[in-house]
């Protein structure tokens, strides 16, 4: 297990991703930050109900991964899910409208902050039960492979979610199915050091979280989650590997949340002011903009323009949400079940991304057999010898 670090491929230089794309990524991260600031403000004004968990400080994690995904890939998030929606391309207006509980919200106002769904953009939801979505992601990955595609599924969750039963059950199944190339899922641990008020060393017997994952025959690696370059580099390599092999992989992003656990967590007795202030030096937005200044010649004016643009987008989203209509009272009883009593089932599944005709090969190996084998070599090298042996038995 310890060997995995040495075997890592080097991260891409800026040259592999064009400068404009980096600037787009930065721009979107700025948007997410401003969106979160606005959402907290609206929460304090009582415009947003329930719980509100903002993502400020962690933007690089989702930005790095989602920017490397294909449009037809699928993403699952926990309840801290605003960034996931925005970075997958959901309209900020619709996301804000959802937080406001309006009919035009991404989940028709029925989900709220913790349950953003935008299936057209690959977001299969935010979930409020810690870790409850991990098995869903493994199942979705199976389905994607079963249908003969090379799409992948990414599942984001916090360090705290690693202690719940569904985590262990899902990872074991993913590990098993992965041996048959049937589970192209990427688990992304958003390790911000805390599960609410409980730090990792007070919630985990083994605090090396990626090492825990490897117990399930799922290779993993740690990455600096404040560094968008590093995140994106890992994402590019891992996603293409998982796409080829159909095997699960885990990325542990070491990150930090600047705000409280939720908008109601004002006192934060579990961490010091100094620690929070210190973490500001590792602001992913600052780090990326500094890097881009050096590498693409990004200027202060460019940054100002981005910031103004994001302000305007967010202001418009807030305006839109404020003015949007509440759901029609009839909506209360809509979408509960699809069945109509006494009607024959029509069999159509609503998911627009539902799989097409199944590949006759049974999904064992993909069309790109050769590439797949290559990828397996890479992976066998990257994972432990023991895992390599098991693979031998499989054949």
């Amino acid at each position, binding site marked *: 297990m310890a060997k995995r670090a040495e075997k890592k491929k080097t991260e891409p230089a800026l040259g592999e991703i064009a400068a404009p794309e980096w600037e787009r990524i930065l721009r979107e991260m700025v948007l997410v930050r401003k969106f979160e600031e606005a959402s907290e403000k609206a929460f304090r004004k009582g415009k947003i109900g329930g719980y509100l968990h903002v993502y400020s400080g962690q933007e690089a994690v989702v930005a790095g991964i989602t920017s490397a995904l294909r449009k037809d890939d699928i993403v699952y998030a926990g309840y801290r899910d605003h960034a996931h929606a925005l970075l997958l391309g959901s309209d900020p207006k619709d996301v804000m409208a959802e937080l406001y*509980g309006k*009919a035009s919200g991404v989940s028709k106002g029925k989900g*709220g902050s913790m349950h953003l769904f935008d299936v057209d953009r690959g977001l299969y939801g935010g979930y409020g039960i810690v870790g409850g979505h991990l098995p869903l992601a493994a199942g979705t990955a199976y389905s994607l492979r079963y249908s003969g595609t090379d799409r992948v599924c990414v599942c984001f969750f916090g360090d705290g*979610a690693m*202690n719940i*039963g569904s985590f262990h059950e899902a990872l074991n199944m993913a590990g098993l199915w992965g041996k048959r190339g049937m589970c192209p899922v990427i688990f992304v641990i958003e390790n911000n050091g805390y*599960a609410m008020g409980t730090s990792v060393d007070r919630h985990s017997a083994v605090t090396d979280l990626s090492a825990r994952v490897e117990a399930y025959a799922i290779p993993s690696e740690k990455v600096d989650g404040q560094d968008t370059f590093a995140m994106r580099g890992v994402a590019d390599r891992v996603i293409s590997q998982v796409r080829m092999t159909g095997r699960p992989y885990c990325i542990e992003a070491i990150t930090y949340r600047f705000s409280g656990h939720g908008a109601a967590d004002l006192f934060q007795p579990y961490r010091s002011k100094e620690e929070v202030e210190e973490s500001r030096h590792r602001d992913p937005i600052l780090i990326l903009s500094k890097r881009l200044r050096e590498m693409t010649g990004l200027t202060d004016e460019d940054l100002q323009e981005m910031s103004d643009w994001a302000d305007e987008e967010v202001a418009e989203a807030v305006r839109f949400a404020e003015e949007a209509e*509440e759901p029609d009272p009839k909506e*209360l009883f809509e979408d509960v079940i699809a069945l109509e009593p006494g009607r024959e089932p029509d069999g159509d599944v609503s998911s627009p991304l539902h799989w097409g005709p199944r590949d006759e090969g049974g999904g064992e190996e993909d069309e790109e057999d050769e590439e797949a084998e290559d990828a397996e070599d890479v992976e066998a090298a990257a994972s432990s010898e023991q895992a390599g042996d098991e693979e031998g038995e499989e054949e």
Partner: protein
Amino acid sequence: MAEKSYRDAVRDAIFEEMERDDSVVIMGEDIGVYEGTFRITAGMLDKFGENRVIDTPIAEAGIVGTAIGMAMTGMRPIVEMMTFNFALVAADQILNHAAKIRYFSGGQLDIPMVIRGPHGAGVGLSAQHSQSFEAFFGHFPGLVVVAPSTPADAKGLLKSAIRGKDPVIFLENAALYAIKGEVPDDSDFTVPIGTSTIARKGADVTIVASGKMVHLSLAAAKTLEEEDGIDCEVVDIRAIRPLDVAPVIESVRKTHRAVVVQEQWKPFGFAAEIASSIMDEAFDELDAPVIRVTGADVPMPYARNLELLAVPHEPDVIQAVRDVAYANGV
């Protein structure tokens, strides 16, 4: 007697029982250093130390399961569910283990533990965080299920639960934490579990409720008296299991009309159970069919306007009482 909040009554009960008996411990997520999401456990870590105030990982099945193991061997664990919604993650441990061990061990073992925490419809918390659990846990033999509506009952019933030998599901409606009421100071004050009580005396219609719905019913009763001259009796079912329907039956013999109020979904619910008990024991006394006031039969929506439509309100109770009293001109 002192005026106390429901929250403080719950805290005092735990505090006093932990002082009284070393075998009582409390465990749960963020209850120690963080002092509890609803601040029930504030000050407890300092006072009792980490062996008795056990901060746990997010692992509901593990928490309940380990607590069962403790309870089977002499300890009296209190499990705090951050909210009862998460108890569903531990359903197997609660329903298949805690509820059954005494029975299938032929009575060789007691399971003296309490699983407590807030439940009930939230404020914009949406479907996974906004559920009421009376009927769900009430369905399973082997469990004791308590749902107090007042600070005094919260304290007295919780002490009884902690001192007893059974796995107790102790449901605190989150909306009640801030309410205040007189609570006896005596540290040996307990309320026996399995006794319903009359929250308001009346002659015309019996309203049956539990937990938060008692307050709705009392408010409705007041309005009905003022506006319609209808005098309602309100029965507070403080324990869902064992269920004491005797005061309900007695009341119906007097009023001949009954309305049952519950926050949760109508099918297979608390209100159905009460209504059916009335039919079993006092069918001939009824002058009108029993009416159920319930939440809408949908997962809880997030949007505020829909959420308001999804849970019962005082006017719904008023309407039901008028209907059952044929006071609507029909």
